[in-house]
């Protein structure tokens, strides 16, 4: 009975849920966005700080379920310190995993703790939870980059 449930709620996910990494809103930042999942009401306010083409900080205040909270924590771990190009690549890899209906083999070298979300992809109703903050990060980063270019 619990096999299906355990594939969703990996220990790694529950650990990040209970002890989220990089939580809180910090200065400095170039863009702040607020994203909502309209079906359930989960919310995230997220800031990005980019310096010299590197993701210097991702800070956030989020309310939501274990999946959305853990995903935010794992994302911050993965993206902070990476170049924009690398971070975008990781974003794309995570997106493909989540949209793969459980058929995509996760790459641990790229996604690290993020591979724990492979099970989430089998629960269509929860994919949006896992992607909430990732979409927020991409939005905030795009806003920052377009500000720089203008």
């Amino acid at each position: 009975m619990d096999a299906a449930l355990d594939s969703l709620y990996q220990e790694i996910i529950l650990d990040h849920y209970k002890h989220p990494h990089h939580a809180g809103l910090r200065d400095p930042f170039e863009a702040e966005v607020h994203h909502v999942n309209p079906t359930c009401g989960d919310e995230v306010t997220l800031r990005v700080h980019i310096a010299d083409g590197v993701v210097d900080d991702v800070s956030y205040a989020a309310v939501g379920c274990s999946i959305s909270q853990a995903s935010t924590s794992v994302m911050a771990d993965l993206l902070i310190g990476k170049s924009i190009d690398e971070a975008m690549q990781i974003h794309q890899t995570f997106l493909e995993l989540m949209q793969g209906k459980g058929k995509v083999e996760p790459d641990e070298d790229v996604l690290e703790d993020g591979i724990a979300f492979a099970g989430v992809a089998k629960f269509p109703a929860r994919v949006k939870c896992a992607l909430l903050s990732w979409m927020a990060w991409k939005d905030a980063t795009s806003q920052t980059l377009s500000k720089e270019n203008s």
Partner: protein
Amino acid sequence: MEGLLPELEVIRKDFPILERELAGGFPLVYLDSANTSQKPQVVIDTMVDHLERHNANISRAMHQLGSESTEAFENARDRVAAFIKAPSRDEVIFTKNATEALNLVSNSLAWATGDLAIGDGDEVVITEMEHHSNIVPWQLLTERKGATLRWFGLTEDGRLDLSNIDELINERTKVVSLTWVSNMLGTINPVAQIAARAHEVGAIVVVDASQAAPQLPVDVVASGADVLVFTGHKVVGPTGIGVLWGRREVLDALPPFHGGGEMIETVTMERSTYAQIPHKFEAGTPPIIEAIGLGAAVDYLDHIGLDAIHAHEQALTGHALQGLASVPGVRVLGPLDAASRGGAISFELEGVHPHDIAQVLDSRGVAVRAGHHCAKPAHARFGVQSSTRMSSYLYTTPAEIDALVEGLNYTRSYFKVG
């Protein structure tokens, strides 16, 4: 348990889906009836029979099938009129759902002239416990017409705060629109009392009976409503069909909303004249099969009796409130006595997000709803972002409530809470 429907096991056999087995071999425990109810065999059969033997468009076809279809459709209107004790069948208008019915009223009011016209300085009053479908149409109307939207607040135990009713509903008030039973808090509102105050100042009263019609005997005249709406799929009928009842004087005074076939008397290229109610508000080919299914559905409920269904719901609600109170960390949102509430109970479980609760319950076959239940302002009022909601109906057993309570205890241990 006192109050339960005496033939509960027979009733359950009327609902084929209750035989469903879910992943892991768990039997379905359906506690999401406030979201949508399950359908008895008679509704399914009535719709299939119509499609197989009588299908034709209504009111236009001169052939035999056309007249059979028209008769079945209009017969459904008679049944709905009886279900809500409407003084006239012509006052019953079929819509797509309750949302469309509310939008039909608010949009017709936007174009109304005379006493019903709404403009600068006028006020529309709603409540903080409304479903979004009874908030947003009124926001649109008041924004567009320069009127002001006001609302009843809520008390700590989830009831309407009526302390300022005489100030809130005043000479400037044109419309008071409120839910009879809250879809989130379960509260049963004193509609007649509020309607009496609204009528003192000449306002019309719109009642959202989406959660009331499934579980309370409805008498539209006694309710005090000028307009009352509900949706078919929560009263064991199909989706795609809703009902708007209105007092004849109000419906006659309102201009049409949708223009098209069926709602006209005559059309020239320059102008048209309109049909009488109900057809005035039923442009285009209506959801025929769905209306006929709804007719069978309300007949089914009338046959069992709404008083008996209400007693059943109250008994189950009392049992559920007791069961929930036994789970550490559970906080029920809304009134805590079964007598003043309906069969939907929203609650929090400390340390576990509603999504995660619903997920664990689902793995055991227990279907509940998690989220804001289209009532974000009511959640905000109680300082919560979302909640878990169980909702019972005439086919729900006490054992199913027990399965929920057991599932919640399991959820706590799964997430290592407490």
